[in-house]
Every structure is written in structure tokens, then in C-alpha cells.
């Protein structure tokens, strides 16, 4: 099962844990409902879309309200440090959360004490605090964008806000930045660097570059990174290896964006709606057929929508 740790931008939202579900354009945890705009709610909705298609259990959420003052985030760190020992997850993803090193370290010690080793993923504040605390290498996957890979590559920067100017945050420098992030031990075992081209890398090399379909309008849309993290988290929790899940997730995210026919003003929910279609197209493509065999997924159990001809480039 997948566990999702993150915050909701509402000060009144309580610290809640439990199964997450999707009903229409809302995410539910217990009786609490959350709008899907961006951030952790977009990650949750995307993960659920994937898990539903794969007939897998819904994710488990650790959520708290926080608008940046940190109270909800600190509560989450404390709760996780005290309660993770009671549960068993295949993968845990850390998302929007205030990067608070002491609280995070306590959570990591609790994870280290578990009798099993969950796959650890991080994006957003979860990724920032993993680097700040010197624990990036304990993670299996980060999903930075161009600005964030520059931050990971800058061994001095405590936050992307302080990334030094000579470490150029240009897309064409991404391979160099990946190399530098690994040199200074500030990268996870695998990376997806999202952008016009999505780079999947480990410390040895760039494993894959996904650049199709190319939809320029996706870059300004808030939440496209959150959907990518949600998709890859769900695929990894399903049992697919991290590198293959990363490649498939990048393709699915780009296809979902393509099918939404977006403009820079499109909102993320419009893209999330297309994830099932994109997922089916990817898992039915010849190249990704090994994904099916890898997790012994019975194709006949999947509601297969045949890929249609693509008329837009």
C-alpha cells in the first residue's frame, strides 16, 4: 500500500489519517473533503486514478492543514515519528510540508527502526527537507524540476531561494546538474527531472529522456509535477521497479496533459481526468508491455481503451 504525507492549504483542516478516496472533483479522508486544485490533493487524485485502473488498494493518507505557519507540518512529523511503527507500507511519499529538519529527522529515525524498508519518495517540501537534513541518499526517488535540480546541485543552498547564480537553472544544463547533485550526495537513488524533457537518472547515468508528446503549455500549469509524483508513486506501490515506473509515469503524465489540450490557463483537474486514458495507452503500448508482466497484472482485468490515432503533434 502507498502512504501519502502532505498538507492541505486550510488552517482549520485537522491532522487526519486514513484511507483516501476520490469522489467526483473532491478527495475524501474520513468525512473531510478536499478540493483538487494543486499540491498534495492533486498528487492524491492522480495516484488514486492509477490505483483504481490497476485494481489496487486505495492509498493511506497522513494529512494536516497548513498555510505555511508550520503548525500542521510539525504535528505531522510528530505523529509519524510516534506511529509509523504500527503500519506496513510498500512506499511512502513525502510532499508539501514545511521543511523542518528536527521533526523530519525524528521521522527518518522511526523509519529506520521499522522491521521492513519502505520505498521512500519525495517531492516539494519533503524533498527540500531531505536535502537540508543530509538524508537525500536515503530516498529512492525525487521528482525535481529545473529550478529544484539546481538547488539539489548546489551543495551550499539551504533552499531553492538561495541557489547560487553560477549554477544555471537552464533546461539544457540538466544533465550537468544531475551529475553535480550526485557528486555532493544530494540526490536520491533515482531522479525524475521534469520539464520540457523529462530526465530519468541514477548516479551512473541518464537512463531515459522522455520528450514526447511535447506540449509547451504544460509548464506554467500548477500541479503538473504533483500529478507526475502521484502517478509514479502509485506505479511503484504496485510493484513495478522504480526506473520503469519513472519512465512510464513521465509518459503517462505527458499524455494526460496532451489529451487535455491545455492552454497556460488550464487548471490541473482538467489534466487529472485524462490520466486513466493515458495510463491505458501506455500499458498497452508495445514498449511498456514488460510492465504488465513485471507485476503479473492480468490484462483481462483492465478496462482497456484502445489507443486512438494522434492527430496533434
Amino acid at each position, binding site marked *: 500500500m502507498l502512504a501519502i504525507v502532505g498538507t492541505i492549504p486550510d488552517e482549520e483542516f485537522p491532522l487526519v489519517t486514513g484511507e483516501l478516496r476520490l469522489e467526483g472533483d473532491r478527495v475524501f479522508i474520513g468525512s473531510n473533503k478536499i478540493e483538487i486544485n494543486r499540491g498534495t490533493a492533486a498528487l492524491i487524485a492522480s495516484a488514486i486514478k492509477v490505483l483504481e485502473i490497476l485494481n489496487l488498494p486505495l492509498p493511506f493518507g497522513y494529512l494536516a492543514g497548513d498555510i505555511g505557519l508550520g503548525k500542521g507540518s510539525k504535528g505531522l512529523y510528530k505523529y509519524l515519528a510516534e506511529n509509523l511503527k504500527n503500519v506496513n507500507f510498500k512506499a511512502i511519499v513525502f510532499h508539501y510540508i514545511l521543511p523542518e529538519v528536527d521533526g523530519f529527522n525524528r521521522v*527518518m529515525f522511526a523509519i529506520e527502526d521499522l522491521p521492513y524498508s519502505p520505498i521512500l519518495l519525495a517531492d516539494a*517540501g*519533503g524533498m527540500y527537507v531531505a536535502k537540508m537534513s543530509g538524508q537525500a541518499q536515503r530516498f529512492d526517488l525525487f521528482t525535481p524540476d529545473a529550478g529544484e535540480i539546481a538547488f539539489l546541485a548546489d551543495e551550499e543552498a539551504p533552499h531553492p531561494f538561495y541557489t547560487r547564480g553560477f549554477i544555471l537553472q537552464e533546461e539544457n544544463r540538466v544533465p550537468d546538474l544531475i551529475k553535480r547533485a550526485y557528486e555532493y550526495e544530494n540526490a536520491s537513488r533515482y531522479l525524475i527531472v521534469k520539464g520540457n524533457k523529462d530526465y530519468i537518472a541514477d548516479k551512473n547515468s541518464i537512463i531515459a529522456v522522455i520528450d514526447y508528446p511535447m506540449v509547451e503549455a504544460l509548464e506554467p500549469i500548477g500541479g503538473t509535477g504533483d500529478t507526475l509524483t502521484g502517478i509514479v508513486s502509485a506505479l511503484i506501490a504496485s510493484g513495478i521497479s522504480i526506473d520503469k515506473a519513472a519512465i512510464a509515469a513521465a509518459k503517462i503524465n505527458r499524455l494526460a496533459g496532451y489529451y487535455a489540450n491545455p492552454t497556460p490557463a488550464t487548471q490541473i483537474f482538467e489534466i487529472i481526468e485524462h490520466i486513466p486514458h493515458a495510463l491505458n495507452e501506455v500499458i498497452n503500448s508495445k514498449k511498456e508491455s514488460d510492465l504488465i508482466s513485471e507485476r503479473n497484472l492480468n490484462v483481462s482485468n483492465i478496462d482497456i481503451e484502445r489507443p486512438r490515432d494522434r492527430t496533434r503533434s
Partner: protein
Amino acid sequence: MSIFKKFKKKRIHLKEKNQGRGFLVFANTSEVIRAESILKDRGFDIRVMGPPPEIRTGCDMVIEFPLIEAMNIQRILTEARIPPLQIVPVSSPLLRPVDLFHIKDFGRYLMVRAANMKLTFDKETFTIVNISGGGCPDVPYLAKEMLGKTLKDVVSPRDIGHTLCGYALQLAYEEACRRC
């Protein structure tokens, strides 16, 4: 705990305790004392100490604080009329905030990126149509508050943001306003 697990636990390599901490630099000691009192009353995890040699401005005392909460703390101190002269990371006091902007023109829309934050607006109506990037919890909150409003009418991130991501969005917002 088994011996194996003890060894395993030792593999966690923690960075120095000052990671994620910042210094507030003030003009004189009385401002430091007032700021300490205000911030402690509000529950911030702070301490007063001597400045490192790299800091060449201000008095001989600084306040160490959680750097990520810089925006919130600066607003509180500005309202109390004791704005800090400087805010710098403890780990590298010479680091300065990002001052490079990346601009992308989408025809009707213009996207401005500062550090890890992107703000996109409609060039005809000046309406903010998307905010993306960032990782602190005020980013989704700021997006919720700012989307659909014009650059002229929106409450700026400086007024309602709390973190360094909010700070980066403020820079992107100021650059967007400058280009209108």
C-alpha cells in the same frame, strides 16, 4: 534493537544542526532584545548569539531562527518597526537570494520564474492564471488566494505568504508587475 539494526541506523548521515537555520541581523542591541522578546512570545524556535565573521553589518548580536519561516518573521518584525538589516543562511552567510528571472512568452500569456516559483498571467487582462512550483505549504494557499485576480488587485505574497517559497513568489510577482 538487534546489532544489525544498530549498524543500519548508523548509516543515517545527518548534516550539521545549523542546516535550515538563518541569522537575523539588526542595527543595534536594543533591536535584538526587542525582536527576541517578540519572536519568543510567538513561539518561534530562536536564540541570540554572536555573529559569524562573514557578517560585516549590524551589531555584535544576531538572532538564529528557522530560515524557512523568514517571510513570516520579517513581516512580524516590520510591523513591530524593527525590520532586520539582513537575513542570511547560517550555513553560508554570504549566500544571497536568487536574482535571476526566467521569462517565457506563450503569446497571450507570460510566465515569470524566480528560483523555484512560476507565476503566469494573461497579458491582455493582467489576470493571474497559474502559479506553479515550490514546496512549502503556503504555495497551494497562495495559489488559491491569487488565481483569477489581476496583478493590480491581488494581495501580494509578501502580505500573506510565510516561507522562502512565498518569498520567491513575491519576487516573481514583482517582476511580473514590472513587465506590465
